[in-house]
């Protein structure tokens, strides 16, 4: 099965790699793969980053094949083999480092971007030293001085990775892919692409003569594009400009364009665009979070006001009912049937009061009071709440925990609200999923002083798109309900210094992370 998948992936990867290698084999140092732009290496790194390091064999085979197809093994089979091993090994190492540094395999913050850029720059410098050293050792560099060859290799590979990897990671990431597609449907995007193309044309065919002189003009549309479309648009724009520059260089091959300088400019352009896009995204996310918080606060205020207003008539209602019962106890006025009805009315008014009380408790306007809570008590609370919520179906709930879990440091009441909410959601979800129904709560210790509670259910799960949407206030997947439960639960988890997140999967899965007591 996994072998079959590797084979299938290889059949996609290898032609793409060779095509990119061929397309970008311009202005080389001698007959070797030292060119100003090497996007195929970005492809190899992303494949191993996403698919796993076991692909290193397939990558090595592809590199050798490309060497033979594109360049015809200029240094002989031995040199081709040695350089290919250097490349494949070096890029596998970089992929491995990136797998550790970017555990969710996506670029979500400026820090991620910095890590990627750092790994690309440092990794290509090391690989380049080995690669150029090999050629120098075999005396194959000809007249080219080692520093120049090294600089070209380094710049070409680093830019190749920086331009290609974000684009490929975006395409592989369901959320970003959706964002890119949405972007492609906007008329503004077409205009932006046209402006970029026109600017590129001006740079290469305009009055300046030297393309590097007018390159700065590209930064203007870049600002526009990144400011409007964020990281997704920046990724697309940098890729477009890189392709444009390569095409321009190919056309102008006769006039000996300043390839190295242009590539350095593309590198600066790419980094600027990506950071700008990331900043725009982060600002947008912060604004969104603020909006959510404000909506939540408004909902809390509303609930408090409603509770107050409804409690007054409920109080009067209960008092009048009680008065009626007292009157009915007087001699001559005794009427057991009427007394029973009034008793039922009183009971209903108490029920209404209970609903209002729960609504108010849900928002828990009071401050969070943290205290140590043994993990065993938390799990007991999960079981107790499970019994209350699931009723006769409580046998579907399984609670699993490793032994020796540390004490938590939480507000017990608030955390019970979160647990109740998650179990109630799971309960509704299992009725929409295929049997057999199951809800599993698993407690795991984390290394960073937190405890992770995984709530998994046999329900239909969430799509990548709904994964974040469900935490927005007033967004509900249910026919009834305000759509506040998860929003409030996440707010509570974050107020504790923990988190609440959903996994996009074919079954429901929520992860609640809570802080542990400082003194275990």
């Amino acid at each position, binding site marked *: 099965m996994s072998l079959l998948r590797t084979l299938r992936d290889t059949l996609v990867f290898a032609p793409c790699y060779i095509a990119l290698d061929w397309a970008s084999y311009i202005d080389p140092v001698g007959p070797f793969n030292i060119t100003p732009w090497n996007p195929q290496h970005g492809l190899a790194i992303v494949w191993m980053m996403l698919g796993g390091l076991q692909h290193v064999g397939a990558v090595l085979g592809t590199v050798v094949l490309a060497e033979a197809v594109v360049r015809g093994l200029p240094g002989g089979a031995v040199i081709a083999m040695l350089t290919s091993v250097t490349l494949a090994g070096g890029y596998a190492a970089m992929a491995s480092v990136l797998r550790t540094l970017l555990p969710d395999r996506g670029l979500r913050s400026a820090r991620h971007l910095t890590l990627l850029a750092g790994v690309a720059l440092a990794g290509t410098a090391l690989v380049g030293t080995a690669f150029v050293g090999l050629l120098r050792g075999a005396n194959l560099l000809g007249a080219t001085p080692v520093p120049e060859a090294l600089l070209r290799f380094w710049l070409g590979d680093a830019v190749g990775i920086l331009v290609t990897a974000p684009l490929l990671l975006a395409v592989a990431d369901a959320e970003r892919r959706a964002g890119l597609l949405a972007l492609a449907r906007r008329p503004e995007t077409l205009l932006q692409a046209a402006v970029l193309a026109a600017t590129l044309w001006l740079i290469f065919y305009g009055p300046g003569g030297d393309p590097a002189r007018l390159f700065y003009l590209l930064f203007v549309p870049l600002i526009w594009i990144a400011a409007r479309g964020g990281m997704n648009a920046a990724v697309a724009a940098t890729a477009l400009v890189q392709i444009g520059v390569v095409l321009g260089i190919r056309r102008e091959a006769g006039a000996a364009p300043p390839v190295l300088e242009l590539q350095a400019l593309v590198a600066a352009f790419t980094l600027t665009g990506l950071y700008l896009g990331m900043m725009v995204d982060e600002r947008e996310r912060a604004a969104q979070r603020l909006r959510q918080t404000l909506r939540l606060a408004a909902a809390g205020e509303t609930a408090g006001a409603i509770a107050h207003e409804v409690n*007054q008539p409920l109080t009067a209602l209960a008092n*009048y009912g009680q008065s009626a019962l007292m009157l009915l106890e007087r001699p001559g006025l005794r009427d057991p049937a009427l007394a029973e009805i009034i008793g039922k009315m009183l009971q209903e008014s108490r029920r209404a009061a209970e609903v209002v009380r729960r609504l108010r408790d849900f928002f828990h306007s009071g401050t969070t009071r943290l205290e140590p809570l043994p993990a065993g008590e938390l799990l007991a609370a999960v079981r107790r709440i499970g019994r209350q919520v699931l009723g006769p179906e409580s046998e579907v709930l399984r609670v699993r925990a490793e032994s020796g879990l540390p004490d938590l440091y939480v507000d017990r009441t608030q955390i019970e609200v979160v647990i109740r909410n998650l179990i109630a959601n799971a309960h509704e979800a299992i009725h929409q999923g295929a049997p057999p129904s199951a809800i599993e709560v698993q407690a795991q210790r984390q290394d960073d002083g937190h405890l992770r509670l995984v709530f998994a259910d046999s329900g239909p799960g969430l799509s990548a798109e709904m994964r974040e949407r469900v935490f927005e206030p007033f967004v509900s997947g249910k026919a009834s309900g305000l759509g506040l439960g998860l929003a409030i639960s996440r707010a509570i988890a974050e107020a504790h210094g923990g988190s609440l997140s959903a996994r996009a999967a074919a079954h429901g899965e929520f992860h609640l992370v809570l802080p542990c007591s400082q003194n275990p």
Partner: protein
Amino acid sequence: MQPESLTVYIVDDDASVRDSLALMLGLAGQRTAFFADAEAFLAAWRADWAGCVIADLRLPGASGIELQAEMRRRGSPLPFIIITAHGDVPAARAAFRADAVDFLEKPFDHEQLRAAIGNAFSKENLRLRRAADAGRLGLLTAREREVLAAAARGLHAKEIARELGISARTVEVHKTRIMAKLGARNVAELVRFALAAEPPPPAK
């Protein structure tokens, strides 16, 4: 003192809550008086009022807790029951710090309310009895007070006579007078008065 002379003073801005409380408590045999806000209550208040106050936490103008503080400032020890439709923990804490008898969340159970009023009234009765005792003690002469204090220590007539340097017969006469003045039927009741005289007499 009979409980009938104790009144439940209701301070709530919600007319229905006020009316229903008055009806329910009235049917339960309680004397009630009600006010829409703290200012109306203070304007009507007289120092000889006895019973308890049920005040809403949130009122137009001064809050229930502020009203309680104002009453303490004026020297009234009337017990307070704070009620609120906005049950929040800090408010409850503030109410108890301000020495409220109870803090009830609306809508409350009528049993809860009855228990709270019962508490408040027993506190009030104790205060009234102390005050009355102190008032009667004021009727005694200096010599009678000495005899009472000695009797409270468990001394017999002869021992008291020796201690005060008077005849046993005179002691008996004093005792009879004291019992008449205080309305005590036996020595045990006398001792209770004597003990009540020990702590500083509460405000009249």
